């Protein structure tokens, strides 16, 4: 079950990893190319995508004080180590 904005660790995979919906507490990211063919496979994928987007819309609409735009959070600065394999 894909629960939008509930964590940073869920990924909904549709048609293997043709399209991925990566959950996040501040943003959800869709990646890939989905071929919705006129067959059972296409329908299955279309339903999965629709359910995910419907859940995202419902979750956003349910929040009373939705900001106009969330602030971009800067990434943490990476650390540095000496390469032990050199």
């Amino acid at each position: 079950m894909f629960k939008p904005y509930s964590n940073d660790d869920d990924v909904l995979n549709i048609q293997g990893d043709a399209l991925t919906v990566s959950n996040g507490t501040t943003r959800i990211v869709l990646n890939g190319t989905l071929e919705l063919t006129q067959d059972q496979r296409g329908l299955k994928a279309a339903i999965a995508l629709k359910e995910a987007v419907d859940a995202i819309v419902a979750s956003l609409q349910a929040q009373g004080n939705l900001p106009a735009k969330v602030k971009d959070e800067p990434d943490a600065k990476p650390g540095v180590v000496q390469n032990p394999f050199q």
Partner: protein
Amino acid sequence: MAPKTRMLCYSDFAVLHSGITHGPLWSAEHLTRDHIEAAKDMVRTNKFFEDARLPDGEGATLADYKRSGFDRGHMSPAGNRWNQEAMAQSFSLANVVPQNRENNQRLWARIETSVRKIAVSYDDTYVVTGPIFNGQQLQTIGPTRVFVPTQLFKVVYVPSRQMAFSVVVDNVSTNRYDIKTIHELEAMSGVRFPGIPESLKDQRPGGLKGV
């Protein structure tokens, strides 16, 4: 590279994990035409997880990747897994490395797709994917100090075609990939591939279709 390594077997892929890099050194899979066809039908909500078989401190944690700026880049891809259990297991942090986002989402995705095409064309295909750690200093992410690879490799071996080669990409936002022979990759990566006949290790095919 051998100290603090552990073999982790999953239902349709296997990983050699390093407690030094806090990630995989390689992840190996056997692809068949039928399994790739089955994988294309998979719809599943997955969850990245820390493998409980690794002692504390050896594996990466979910917190390490949070706001790291890097994707959790699969080595054996989720899109090659042909059943629910295997797809869930591919989200083990022992099967991912910190990967440049654009690289993962564009170039690497296209390389994975072209390898699937090889498996669909020729059936039995053996694939090993892993990181390369090059240079005097390395970047790390998170409190565990997970090593960020400088490059990624993918080895493809098709016994029926007597074909073996590798693909190497820099772990940056790029559309460039290099085809290397298995011998060249062994020298670059420090990983040996004893399952591939020595007689095939100097082949260099032209490139990948569709990348």
